């Protein structure tokens, strides 16, 4: 699913300069984000887990079964993110099956990556 295309006309675009903190592990979160441009780092306990590029999502964990951020997200470069709030997330899941499948694959991919981190 091409999220860049879906969210290109979003009214909730926010710019984060390089180095700024987008989400903090353990804090409450009510949005997920689509990286529209730039790169963001995902880390847990100060350990870099992954870098998300344009078209990828971050922050989705706080919208699934919990509102607590499971990781810290920081802008690696100047980045533009599209915000998806809880209500929009719920309606996307309900009415756009491709979005559900996309999020599910992202979660599975993150899980695979986490297992890889353990394995090395």
């Amino acid at each position: 699913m091409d999220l860049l295309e879906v969210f290109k006309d979003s009214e909730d675009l926010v710019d984060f300069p390089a180095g700024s903190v987008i989400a903090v592990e353990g804090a409450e979160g009510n949005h997920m984000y689509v990286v529209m441009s730039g790169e963001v780092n995902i880390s847990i306990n100060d350990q870099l887990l992954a870098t998300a590029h344009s078209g990828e999502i971050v922050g989705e964990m706080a919208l699934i079964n919990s509102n607590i951020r499971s990781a810290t997200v920081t802008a690696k470069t100047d980045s533009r993110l599209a915000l998806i709030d809880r209500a929009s997330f719920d309606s996307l899941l309900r009415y756009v099956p491709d979005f559900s499948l996309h999020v599910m694959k992202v979660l599975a991919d993150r899980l695979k990556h986490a297992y890889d981190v353990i394995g090395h």
Partner: protein
Amino acid sequence: MKYLKMFRKWKDVEEHSAQTVLFTEGTPADALYVITSGEVELSLRGEPLGTEVAGGIIGEMAILPSAKRNTTATALTDVKLARLTRYQLEMLMTKNPDFSLHVMAILADRLRTVNHYITVQFDSAQ
């Protein structure tokens, strides 16, 4: 779990007795399973990661094409499992948004568990 009824009528089912190893770390993940009865232990490199009961999903790496099992699953009791291919899962999710949410919640919970495991490992390594 309200989907248990559906999976108890699922055509592709497996039954295994207690102590059976259901799948092993590193082997191809060709299907995932919904536990319809019994308990399954997931372990990682011989260390227990958690127990899944009826309604739980195991083998979710099959969501990704050509993925491998990242954990070993062992039946703690006699178990019954409904076997789903990636295609079957995608069809169910497409038709049933509530089921999508259920699957996502399971994945998110497992990710939290594994992330916690990573945090503990790094902490003890430091």
